């Protein structure tokens, strides 16, 4: 998995936490969603409060100020690192040690957003994020935070093959993962490509139809019949 962006973080218990940093593409989409939401709220605030005259304008100014600077901070701190836009895109902000982000770092990374935005359209932030392995923009570097992908919720696997076959005992965990990944992705591959890939393993599997053999092994791994 050398080409992967996945990072491992060692915990005090000696477990390795897999974290996958999110790049700027998905983060820009999340940001666009957040901007749309904020824009909508601002419009509603002004329409309602402008009916109240000067008092209303004052309150509206304070609310839009809070919305501009503290909208991301509020959601990141209370929703375990997810603003609505980030939640939609399946990403979240965490501290460097993988724990949910706290108030100080969240405020810091969102204040530094104005610098990351310079000179336009987050150019500084994009360049900064391309210069390190965790895709950190300047705000993340200062705050000690990073944006990661959420682990997708476990799906009910279905490999369209019945029966089980024991997995050879000398397959390592990563090799097992490769078999499982093949079975999961096989519905996106043509039958010819499937058998082409599976035939590579034929010397090890020694079965009549390697595609079915692999899928049956996958069944064994996830405990399906």
């Amino acid at each position: 998995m050398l080409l992967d962006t996945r990072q491992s973080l060692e915990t005090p218990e000696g477990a390795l936490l897999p974290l996958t940093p999110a790049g700027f593409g998905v983060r820009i989409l999340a940001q666009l969603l957040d901007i749309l939401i904020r824009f909508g709220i601002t419009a509603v605030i002004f329409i309602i409060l402008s009916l109240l005259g000067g008092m209303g304008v004052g309150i509206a100014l304070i609310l839009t100020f809070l919305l501009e600077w503290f909208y991301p901070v509020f959601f990141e701190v209370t929703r375990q690192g997810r603003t609505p836009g980030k939640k939609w895109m399946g990403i979240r902000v965490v501290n460097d040690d993988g724990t949910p982000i706290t108030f100080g770092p969240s405020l810091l990374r969102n204040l530094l957003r104005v610098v990351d935005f310079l000179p336009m359209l987050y150019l500084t932030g994009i360049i900064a994020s391309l210069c390190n392995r965790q895709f950190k923009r300047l705000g993340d570097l200062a705050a000690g935070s990073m944006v990661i992908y959420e682990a997708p919720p476990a799906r009910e696997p279905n490999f369209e093959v019945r029966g089980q076959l024991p997995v050879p005992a000398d397959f390592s965990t990563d090799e097992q993962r490769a078999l499982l990944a093949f079975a999961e992705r096989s519905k996106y591959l043509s039958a010819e490509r499937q058998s082409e890939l599976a035939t590579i393993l034929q010397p090890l599997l020694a079965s009549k139809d390697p595609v079915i053999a692999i899928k049956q092994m996958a069944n064994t791994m996830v405990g399906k019949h």
Partner: protein
Amino acid sequence: MKQGQFEQLYQPLWQVIELQIIELEKPEGKLKGEELASFASRYRRLCHFHALAKDRHYSSHLVDKLGDLVVRGHQQLYRRKQPFMQQFTSFIVAGFPRLVREQQSYIWWATALLYIPGLLMFLAILWQPDLVYTISPPEQVSQYESMYDPQNRVLGSARDSETNVQMFGFYISNNIGVSFRTFASGILFGVGSIFFLVFNGLLMGAVAGHLTNAGFTETFFTFVVGHGSFELTAIAISGAAGLKLGYSLLAPGNLTRKESLKRASKIAIQLVYGVIVMLVIAAFIEAFWSSNNILDPWQKYLVGGFLWAIVIGYLVFSGRGLRGETATPATKDESGSARG
């Protein structure tokens, strides 16, 4: 042990800990007493099972499932306390002024960058009135003139409470926004903070100088003397916080630049907390007191001087007497534990 046996034997334990994690992940979710106390040891057992499953080459599906639980458990067990709100009072009384004193070299630099260009501009405009147009476009200048023209008295007692609230909102969003930008742009090796400090100083000096030439000194200085204490000091402090970020990148010492920046930001952001509070106070004074024209000028100068004395006295003396706390509260964040 076969994988099937392993799963059958320990499945109930995993389910218990998964339920606990789900409970902890809820915003309001809390585990009580016994349950909470047992969470740490359950989590460590979970790590143990995860390591066993990996080592015994059980199927990746099981390993990944346990791994996912480990990640989520880790996040709950080691989540940092959020001490800001609880320790707010002690921060205001002692933490913030102590921090300002501790970082005073940055504060002095920022103060100099704000006031010296301002003073020079002020004197220059008294000598050469047209210099005001190097800083401000003519329309802006005439706007300042009409604002402080004693004939107009738009800022006077005639202003009703509704306008006051409107201006309060404006001052909050404008001034705090300016101070946030002054701080944040410091990460560009300090250049941004220096720019904003000098620019604000020049603008301030230009307006003061121009209005002095126009003979509006009384309306102008009675207006600014009150809230200036909190506002200018806060801008200087936010600039100082920005300079600290910039300096940490320029001169990281024995640390890597990244680590140096991280440590400096931890302190700088706490200066920003204090700045926010000061600017809210300043906006309040500006909207509800400074615009009040019923009082005589000497009364406004007296109160203004009193406010300056409060700000300076607070930053110089507050929190000196209390013992047993470190001035740098940066370590507060690091005590991790599950919420209780």
